[in-house]
């Protein structure tokens, strides 16, 4: 896992705030809507493609600027981003996640936001997702990867 020093106690509260910001935008953009996900997979609206595309564009520009100008974190550390290694899981697991995305209308982030806006039954989806994660962990060394 990460080699970056871990924070404790009050220092973690800032992530709660960033999560709140992220959650509010997810809801206000309606990207947590089951209907919006259906629109996307039926190619009947540009909305989701616009949201994801614009998010990637801003993320890409930010990382480019951070690397180019060697921008440090607020505590003065060098920004470290681990490279991703190619594994078969990105193909097989990715496809399986896609199947689930279209059924639940949610990726992991939106699951939390759906619960927050009052669809408490999505807690069941969350518990099932935990179970899915656990079963993957249990089988990890037996699956092609």
């Amino acid at each position, binding site marked *: 896992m*990460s080699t*970056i020093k871990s*924070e404790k106690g009050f220092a*973690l509260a*800032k992530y*709660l705030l*960033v*999560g*709140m*910001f*992220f*959650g*509010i*935008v*997810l809801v206000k*953009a*309606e990207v947590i809507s089951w*209907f919006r*996900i*259906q629109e996307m997979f*039926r190619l009947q609206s540009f909305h989701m493609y616009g949201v*994801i595309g614009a998010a990637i564009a801003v*993320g*890409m520009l930010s990382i480019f600027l*951070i690397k180019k100008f060697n921008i440090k974190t607020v505590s003065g550390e060098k920004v470290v981003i681990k*490279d*991703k290694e190619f*594994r078969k899981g*990105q*193909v*097989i697991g*990715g*496809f*399986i996640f*896609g*199947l*689930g*995305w*279209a*059924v639940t209308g*949610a990726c*992991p*982030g939106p*699951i939390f*936001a759906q619960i*927050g*806006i*009052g*669809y408490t*039954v*999505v807690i069941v*989806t969350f518990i*099932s*997702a935990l179970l*899915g994660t656990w*079963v*993957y*962990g249990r089988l*990890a*060394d037996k699956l092609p990867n």
Partner: protein
Amino acid sequence: MENFIEWISQPWPWYVAGPLLGLTVPILLLIGNRSFGVSSSLRHVCAACVPAKIPFFSYNWKAEAWNLFFVAGIVLGGVVAASVLSNPAEVIVAQSTQQDLRALGITRFENLLPSEIFTWDNLLTMKGLVFFVFGGFLVGFGTRYAGGCTSGHAIMGISNLQWPSVVATIFFMLGGFAMTHLLLPFLMRLSGF
């Protein structure tokens, strides 16, 4: 102030929401050198609660506690968005999508999620089994097997020019298309639509 609340209570267009979501990437990097990603939170919860001596869950999850604070924040963000900033109008779903979904048996489009599926009443029915239990399992299993989800791969990974993340994102989309067009009609009939 009232005008402002009214104004931000409208649904946000993609060119506002997308860039704001993208800003999560530099914010997390700069406030704590954290790589954006949500699905690892599921792994941390498993590691914290039911590690069962499985190597995949034997690591110091406390060092990743920031991720659990982040997802707790997402829940709170949902609460705020639904209370303070809630949109009084109906959700706008493309006419063609409404038509396709009507053909599958969905008739109500007034909320963010179809009220014919996402209720506690459906928990112990085929609807619940398909849409919450089975769907949720695929999301959890798939994202962990893929090593990330829409946030970790599609946004963070591609932003950092990682080609494995491009591959993962392509397969997320392929899975979604396959479900929507090939399997969903069958699953909806099976669950009584």
